[in-house]
């Protein structure tokens, strides 16, 4: 009797069927893989060429150059062979990181050195054009006309005008007004429709000449001139400002006041400013105002301390409770284990944005469900200190699922032999946790703790949606009790002064970035000490 279970003679040897993944990979190697690769590369190249055409039509040369470089890089990479194999896996993520992280950061740094804000978003030439347009006003006894653009017998562009007050009819040219008999002109619903001796422009011919028609100014008396306003009306206007291109100044015609370019993006004369201004570089002025402007520098330290405390508290509390839950629910053979784990993940069921708004309603002092059901009278959102507690508690509620999952994963990675050995050596559960489990856990989780700290340092949603920056005090009416650096920046830069100040917001954002980067870098270098344990 043979105890072996070898194959009986005559049957081919059984080859074990490979697992799914290797089979999938081998399916896509060879011809099939090549075809797929060619198809995908064709698609991306076609997309690049079409996008390049669109960019070229709009004269976006920088975008075009970047597009060409990126497409060439992708092509070289996927046709490159073995040497560039690692790059194939790095390039997509790197490209996305550059597009969505590096580029916005570079742009923010650029904006921080400009005066980009309300009243300073146009280019200088646009601003000068608008100032001139805005300075036109009807003179005393200025008239308004029904108008029809026409060509005279020589083919020159003229305006046929009828005074809306008196009914007198004229033909207007660069040289001035000339009366023409009223009988020669017929008007209709769309302005002047016929004029004897002139060909009234209609339809596309009229529409395509719009800029030329609007540029035709018929001089009347003094500085006044008649120009087209709508497709069928014209008005007599006189400028109140005169632009001197050589001297780069505007002069007010009535009293000769001169407005000069003040180097900060506007034409000014003392305190008077011509609007609009334009966007220009202002060097370190935004950073300077962080130090000198009492609005920014006054509450800075208090807000910074609260931001730091908030971030540390949320991370510490969420990690502690998340770890505790992970350990408690890790027991083998625990009944309803899956149910408990799902319950812990409930805070993630609804998008954070909605949860925060719902919590704002739940925690309302007088009308919220929390105070009603628990028969409490706690001023959750309208008292300075309690609002801080509310912010920490709600953010903690939102972050626990994350640390629960992370801890669960990290706990599985700790070899069972170590804890068993420790138990054999006579360690109690708490000792085992402190000396064995926690250090090994921290090695894996420290980067995540630091990342979560950085996230909560800038948790704009968590603060702004819940308390709006918190109840304010009369002695500090702008910076509320729960304002963190980023929400205070928002209040100053977006809802302040003369509209929105993006330059200042960008400058403060960079400062916040430097703070967070410093803290993170220091923390990362310190956690290297934990690596030595292994």
């Amino acid at each position, binding site marked *: 009797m043979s105890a072996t279970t070898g194959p009986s003679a005559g049957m081919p040897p059984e080859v074990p069927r490979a697992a799914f993944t290797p089979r999938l990979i081998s399916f896509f190697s060879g011809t099939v893989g090549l075809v797929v690769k060619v198809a995908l590369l064709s698609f991306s190249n076609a997309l690049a060429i079409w996008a390049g055409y669109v960019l070229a039509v709009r004269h976006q040369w920088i975008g075009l150059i970047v597009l060409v470089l990126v497409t060439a890089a992708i092509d070289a990479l996927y046709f490159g062979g073995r040497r560039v194999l690692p790059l194939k896996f790095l390039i997509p993520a790197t490209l996305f990181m550059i597009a969505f992280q590096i580029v916005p950061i570079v742009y923010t740094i650029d904006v921080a050195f400009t005066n980009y804000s309300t009243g300073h978003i146009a280019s200088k030439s646009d601003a000068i054009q608008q100032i001139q347009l805005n300075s036109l006003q009807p003179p005393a006894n200025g008239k308004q006309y029904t108008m029809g653009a026409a060509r005279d017998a020589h083919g020159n562009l003229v305006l046929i005008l009828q005074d809306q007050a008196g009914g007198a009819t004229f033909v207007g040219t660069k040289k001035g007004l000339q009366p023409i008999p009223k009988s020669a002109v017929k008007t209709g619903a769309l302005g002047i429709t016929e004029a004897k001796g002139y060909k009234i422009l209609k339809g*596309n011919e009229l529409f395509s000449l719009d800029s030329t028609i609007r540029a035709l100014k018929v001089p009347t008396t003094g500085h006044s001139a008649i120009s087209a306003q709508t497709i069928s009306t014209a008005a007599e*206007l006189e400028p109140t400002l005169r632009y001197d291109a050589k001297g780069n100044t505007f002069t007010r015609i009535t009293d000769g006041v001169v407005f000069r370019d003040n180097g900060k993006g506007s034409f000014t004369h003392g305190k008077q400013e011509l609007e*609009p201004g334009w966007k220009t570089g202002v060097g370190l002025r935004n950073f300077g105002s962080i130090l000198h402007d009492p609005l920014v520098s006054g509450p800075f330290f208090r807000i910074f301390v609260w931001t730091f405390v908030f971030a540390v508290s949320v991370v510490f509390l969420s990690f502690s409770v998340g770890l505790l839950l992970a350990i408690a629910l890790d027991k083998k053979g625990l009944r309803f284990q899956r149910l408990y784990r799902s319950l812990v993940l409930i805070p993630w069921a609804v998008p954070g944005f909605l949860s925060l708004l719902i919590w704002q309603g739940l925690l309302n002092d007088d009308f919220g469900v929390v105070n009603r059901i628990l028969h409490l009278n706690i001023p959750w959102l*309208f008292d300075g200190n309690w609002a801080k507690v509310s912010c920490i508690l709600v953010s903690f509620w939102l972050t626990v699922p994350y640390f629960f999952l992370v801890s669960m994963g990290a706990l599985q990675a700790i070899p069972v032999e170590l804890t068993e050995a420790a138990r054999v050596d006579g360690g109690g559960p708490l000792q085992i946790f402190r000396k064995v489990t926690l250090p090994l856990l921290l090695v894996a989780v420290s980067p995540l703790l630091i990342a979560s700290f950085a996230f909560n340092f800038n948790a704009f949603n968590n603060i702004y949606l819940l308390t709006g920056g918190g109840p304010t005090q*009369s002695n500090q009416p702008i910076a509320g009790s729960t304002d963190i650096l980023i929400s205070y920046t928002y209040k100053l830069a977006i809802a302040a002064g*003369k509209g929105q100040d993006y330059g200042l917001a960008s400058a403060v954002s960079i400062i916040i970035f430097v703070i967070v980067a410093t803290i993170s870098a220091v923390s990362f270098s310190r956690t290297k000490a934990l690596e030595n344990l292994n």
Partner: protein
Amino acid sequence: MKSRKRVAALLAVVLAAMCAALAGSVKSTVASSKAGPTITIWADQDRKTSVIQLANAWATARGTTVNVLVHDFGKIRDDLGTVAAAEAPDVIMGAHDWTGQLAANGLVQPIILSAATKKNFPAYTLQAFSYGTAVKKLYGVPTQIENIGLIVNTKLVKVPKTFAQLETEALAFKKKKAGNLGIAVQQGTNGDAYHMYPFFSGLGGYIFGVNKAGNLDPSDIGVSNPKFLKNAWMINKWNKERLINSKLDASTAQNAFLKGQAAFWVTGPWNSDTLKQSGLKFTIIQVPKIRYRSVPFLGVQGFLVTKYAATHGVESLAQDFVANYMTTADAQGTLANASGRWPANIAAGKQFKDPVLSQFGKAGVGGVPMPNIPQMNSVWGDLGQAWVRSTKGAGAEKAAASFKAATRAIANKIG
């Protein structure tokens, strides 16, 4: 073999790319040679249908085409500053308090209306769309007016003729049952200076004073002017009586009124459908005079011509649509019917028959248009917070100190 495969692959790639490129460029050239110019209009979702109808009627009469794009109303003002010129609109719908910021950014074109057209509109609606530090120019054509009013549940209380009567009735109603409110006016953690404005103006407050030339003067901030401070003690009294509670937010206030837990509600015509469908018997009045007339803020909405109309070479057409067509009584009436707001054109207003909206209109008589200068941005948050601090019940600050702090903050921010 490998290099042949590679060449074949490269060739296939390049060929495919060129086909796509050709297709793309052909499509682009075909698209750009269409007949005639197009006016692009940004309208919001609520008024899209009537704007499309009106714009098409105008375009057919003029022999041109119009393209109405839906754009979130709250984003139009800011997006206009960042949109690329090729996709920018030529005409936008807008609120009058955007005028200052848009004009200061150089994004809108001045509009000249004939004297005859101007007579068709109440002066304040044209003022609302006018702006200028040196020369005041009109930048928009008003089409709709709105303002908040005091909704009184006539089954629960009598319509008050004086503010003292309002106080007595509201407090008596509040005492009747636990959970009843005095006046349901929304504030919340962020405050709401807009809804609190009737109370503010009734006590003598104003936002910006008017200088000799008739323009708003941002250096004259009236948030804690002497007349207001003299009457500020009333806010402390209201707070003690819990007549006004700053912890009420918008949905709580609405639900309280609809469920009969509040007899007085301060809200605007955007809730007129909700009111009509609630089945409650109500009257809408202006908040009774406190020490001065308790006038609400007036909001005017209309159309503006953007600077991109000039860039696109269609400015005369865009101006014609806004200044000649949208000012007519017919166009304004159509828009008003579709959007549930009172039309700005006086003739259209006479033909507009909606009982709820006409009550709102009467509640706005004497109202103040919201200041449209960019400095107004600084005011909302601080003024709202001043009310929140002084009406939050236990632990509320004294109104005088609270509003003085708000004035300091606003002055600091305006600089």
